[in-house]
């Protein structure tokens, strides 16, 4: 079955989520992947959105982080204050699922500005929930499209910490969460090296050339010696994903980005 680069990215990201995990979901690509996981192999995945819903089970993808269906399908909805204090900071989250505008070799994330902070070329939306999700979740998955503009040698601004300067940086500065465990892109999957924590390509999607990944990475990319080809999306995965996108488009007028 034919599939797009975005589809294998979403499917690969969804596969990262084990059934029963408690997942704090960022809006956009992470929300799409998390809901695909819930609708396929992980029916008991617990989705928590920063607006307050705990255990949301939306039938269409939310356009915003606080669509009404998140609340009506949730086990309960608490205040945004409680979500961040008792649930995220309180250590109840297994997996934080984030997007990013820029990422560096240690999976640090910029979602604040391109250019100088005081006179930015592009003002991005900012931090949102990401810094504390990146800090406190048990582990973090990041999903974004891989380009020279997004995979950069040096971030213009560190909004959320991945593995900092690498090695035991997180432990050294006192972060309790485990940090990024994988970065899933439209070209492959990168994982931090066990000791240096530098992102290493461990999976490449079918039909993608290594040179293509290298060209889309703003630093000299390391490859795993046991680099694997990502299994193609199954017919069921694609069917569920497309059905979800179709329902969403019908509901919103267009699929969320």
């Amino acid at each position, binding site marked *: 079955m034919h599939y797009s680069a975005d589809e294998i990215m979403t499917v690969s990201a969804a596969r990262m989520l084990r059934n029963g995990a408690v997942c704090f979901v960022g809006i956009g690509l992470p929300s799409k992947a998390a809901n695909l996981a819930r609708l396929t192999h992980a029916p008991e995945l617990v989705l928590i959105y920063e607006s307050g819903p705990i255990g949301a089970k939306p039938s269409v993808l939310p356009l*915003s982080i606080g669509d009404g269906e998140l609340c009506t399908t949730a086990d309960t909805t608490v205040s*945004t204050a409680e979500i961040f*204090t008792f649930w995220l900071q309180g250590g109840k989250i297994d997996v934080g699922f984030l997007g990013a505008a820029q990422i560096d070799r240690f999976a640090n994330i910029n979602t604040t500005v391109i250019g100088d902070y005081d006179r930015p*070329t592009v003002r991005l939306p*900012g*931090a*949102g929930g*990401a810094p504390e999700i990146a800090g406190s979740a048990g582990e973090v998955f990041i999903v974004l499209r891989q380009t020279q503009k997004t995979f950069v040698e040096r971030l213009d601004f560190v909004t959320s910490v991945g593995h900092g300067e690498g090695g035991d940086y997180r432990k050294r500065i006192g972060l309790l969460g485990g940090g990024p465990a994988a970065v899933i892109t439209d070209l492959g999957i990168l994982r931090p090296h066990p000791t240096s924590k530098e992102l290493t390509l461990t999976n490449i999607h079918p039909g993608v050339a290594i040179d293509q990944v290298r060209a889309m990475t703003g630093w000299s990319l390391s490859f795993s010696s046991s680099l694997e080809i990502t299994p193609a999306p199954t017919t069921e995965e694609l069917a569920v994903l497309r059905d979800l996108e179709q329902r969403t488009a019908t509901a*919103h007028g267009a699929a969320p980005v």
Partner: protein
Amino acid sequence: MARILPLADAVSELVQDGDQVACEGFTHLIPFAAGHEIIRQERKNLTLVRMTPDLIYDQMIGMGVANKLLFSWGGNPGVGSLHRLRDAIERQWPTNLAVEELSHAGMVQAYMAGAAGLPFGTMRGFTGTDLPKVNARIKSITCPFTGENLAAIPAIRPDVAVIHAQKADRTGNVLIWGIIGVQKEAALASKRVIVTVEEIVDRLEPPPNACVLPSWVVSAVCLAPGGAYPSYAQGYYDRDNRFYQLWDKISRSREQFLHWMKVNVLAASGPVNFREKFSNMERVA
């Protein structure tokens, strides 16, 4: 005790030039009608506080009511940029907007500290990020028991909180349900509180442990059905996701934005049911 007032009177009396104003509502119950009234009354030099500026602050900033913004995520949710916010930051139009930013968790701490009568809130956060380099609101504090370093955020105590709720009773008790965001914290942190509501009823009849603001912490309750549109009011109407997508087009150019605001907001003689007007808006856009 809250007074039941027309929205124009409440804004006229309770929102002054130079005030720090927090219009809250996390995606849900965003107080558009009240924001539009602030625009119509041409307030100036407001410090706008809000976790997610959303379209309402994009409109208020574009119309020049603010000279400062305190926020944590400034995009059009699921769509992209807030073009008027970006224009203000990137090109100082219509004015040079000072910006102070936190994360969501940081804003939450600031509101909670304000509501709790504390000068600051304590959190795990910002360690290793560049945010403390650009925001003096983020300091560190040492636990007197463990020696751990934590982040400290000063309380926010707005002059006015502006929120939208599902309903109030005739004495001004307010019920909010669904995604309740930080409205209670923002209201309790503020000196004055304006609440617009979908309806005013004889009896509130909240479920047990509901999010209720008693009348005596509310300054004014204003009837504004549809007042959260194009955001939503659970139990009344859905979020108009199409409008959020449409706004991306309306707001890209200064001229189109100004025209749209003139026709749809300024030309209204007072609070209008914006939601009912939407078919008209689509034509204009």
